[in-house]
């Protein structure tokens, strides 16, 4: 069964078309990169899937069901900007997630945080940007979801933190789940991706296996991206 299916999906903001007649199907068990320049529609697509925006027209199915409260329980979403409050401590946030999501694995989250030296009474306010991002990724990946939507999970963190985040993604997702990652930092995520989607002005420019790109073009996804989107 496909985890995500978009048929003729469009989203307009006023007269501006952010996504135009998008057709896309993602199977289970894949890590998929959603790549494209600024303003290409990546975040719009993710927000549509997460049910935060309504499509102008077209169909959007998650595990065969139209986007709704029911599909939200199948989706674990890491937004570009945090929705957690600064005054919260780690334990506040853990309890918040635990009461909010049935599929939240408290032990897994606690173990990962402990291994990073993040303590239960640490306040969000006192954390560095890198630590905050790691914390939020751990929360999102500690749910047993079918579809993980990660909007720029490694933006603004140092290379060592990026490696940590990528290995957390690899080790956390189950075989029946799919991960959709939007990012600009292609070189860093490339080796964990199965498939990439290039978006440009709300249209899919390329949808291909990473291995196929390397075989056909003899170059990395990063180099191909620079070529396709040369300014």
């Amino acid at each position: 069964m496909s985890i995500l299916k978009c048929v003729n999906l469009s989203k307009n903001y006023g007269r501006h078309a952010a996504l135009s007649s998008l057709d896309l199907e993602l199977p289970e068990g894949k890590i998929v990169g959603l790549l494209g320049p600024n303003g290409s529609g990546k975040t719009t697509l993710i927000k549509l899937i997460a049910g935060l925006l309504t499509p102008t027209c077209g169909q959007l199915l998650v595990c065969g069901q139209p986007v709704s409260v029911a599909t939200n329980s199948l989706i674990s979403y890491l937004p570009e900007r945090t929705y957690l409050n600064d005054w919260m401590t780690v334990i506040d946030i853990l309890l918040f997630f635990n009461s909010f999501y049935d599929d939240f694995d408290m032990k897994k989250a606690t173990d990962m945080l402990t291994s990073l030296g993040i303590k239960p009474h640490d306040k969000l306010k006192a954390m560095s940007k890198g630590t905050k991002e790691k914390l939020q990724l751990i929360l999102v990946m500690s749910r047993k979801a079918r579809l993980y939507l990660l909007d720029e999970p490694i933006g603004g963190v140092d290379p060592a933190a990026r490696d940590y985040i990528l290995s957390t993604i690899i080790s956390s997702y189950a075989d029946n789940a799919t991960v959709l990652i939007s990012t600009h930092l292609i070189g860093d995520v490339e080796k964990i991706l199965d498939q990439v989607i290039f978006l440009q002005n709300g249209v899919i420019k390329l949808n291909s296996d990473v291995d196929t790109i390397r075989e056909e073009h003899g170059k990395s996804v990063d180099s191909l991206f620079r070529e396709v989107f040369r300014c």
Partner: protein
Amino acid sequence: MPWKFDDSRPVYLQIMDEVKQRVLTGVYKPGDKLPSVRELALEAAVNPNTMQKALSTLESENFIHSERTSGRFVTDDMTLITALRKEQAESIADEMLSRLKATGMQNDEILMLIKAKLGE
């Protein structure tokens, strides 16, 4: 330490090379059990599907074999390992020779040079 990959070739082919290299250098010994796909994927910092593809391809080359419940094992077929070693050595020798010739050296000079190096 994530494994190093270059940009020009599919990652699964590069993983296959790395596993073969590890067998040649004795990191994995003939007949050894390999770590699980997930462990290897984490170590290499690659997608588990990519690691799976690399291992399945090695399996189709009979370089490793899987036993239904107990995991994947490196071949203990020494002729296969010897053949791989020979193949690799030949391609290194070809490359070395073409680079030596590019310096303008003649065959007898190259031979003397190599003998001298081996005698060291």
